[in-house]
């Protein structure tokens, strides 16, 4: 299958938005903050342990998966207006993280899956990455790879 065909195939299974409730179910996640906000929808996902990558999330409505459980992940997400954070590989948020997430109304969950598997599960169910949103910006080009 050539690149165009692959991306056409992907379009077919694309979902425009996914509720945090579905993210929770798909990732078998435990919710630490935001149990009352699970009807909130996300329109894309991203996974990173680097603060600067998190800050490059192009728009709002993105769920961030991270393997780093430090209070900085919460602060960075608030700054980047990320819609929700999921810690991977069963990492549990610290009290400090929970307090900050509560203060800023940021949903915070933890999934037992690894980063790769968690991203794969969401992707398989139709949630896409932030690349297409980036393509809309004329200054950034994204190659379909590999």
């Amino acid at each position: 299958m050539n690149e165009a065909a692959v991306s056409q195939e992907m379009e077919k299974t694309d979902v425009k938005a996914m509720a945090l409730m579905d993210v929770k179910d798909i990732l078998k996640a435990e919710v630490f903050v935001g149990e009352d906000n699970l009807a909130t929808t996300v329109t894309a996902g991203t996974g990173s342990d680097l603060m600067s990558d998190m800050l490059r999330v192009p728009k709002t409505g993105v769920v961030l998966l991270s393997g780093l459980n430090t209070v900085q992940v919460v602060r960075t997400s608030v700054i980047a207006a990320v819609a929700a954070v999921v810690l991977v590989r069963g990492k549990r948020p610290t009290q400090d993280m929970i307090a900050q997430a509560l203060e800023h109304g940021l949903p915070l969950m933890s999934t037992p899956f690894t980063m790769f598997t968690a991203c794969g599960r969401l992707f398989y169910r139709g949630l896409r990455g932030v690349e297409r949103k980036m393509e809309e910006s004329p200054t950034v080009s994204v190659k379909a790879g590999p």
Partner: protein
Amino acid sequence: MSQLTKRFSILARDFSRAGEVSIQVQGTLKKIGYDQDIIRRASICAYESELNVVMYGEGGHLQLTLGPDEIVLDVVDEGPGIEDIELAMQEGYSTAPAEYQEMGFGAGMGLPNIKRNSDSLEINSAKGKGTHLRIGFKVR
């Protein structure tokens, strides 16, 4: 609208508090009621530059100026300065030690991210003389 200035101190290498200044900047901009896009861009620039001061700048301050046409962030430190600004503007170039990178910082994206999210950026820095960033956002 008259001009409003707010100044915040930034402590060196205090990672437990790093980012708090930017959260305050974000809160101030939200309270005034700027549009989401400019708040988001200004918050990201504040955060990247605050972290730079925490990591490299030996502490310093961030000054927020709200004018009728422009939001300005002046970020000043008395650290070692940037030896090669052109190199520091390249994505992925970093002088961060491994311990910062393990915390998710120092990926070499700070200044490029600031440039990307701002409407104007002036960098005044020289080896041994500290760094002053003036980051501007046009209010439309």
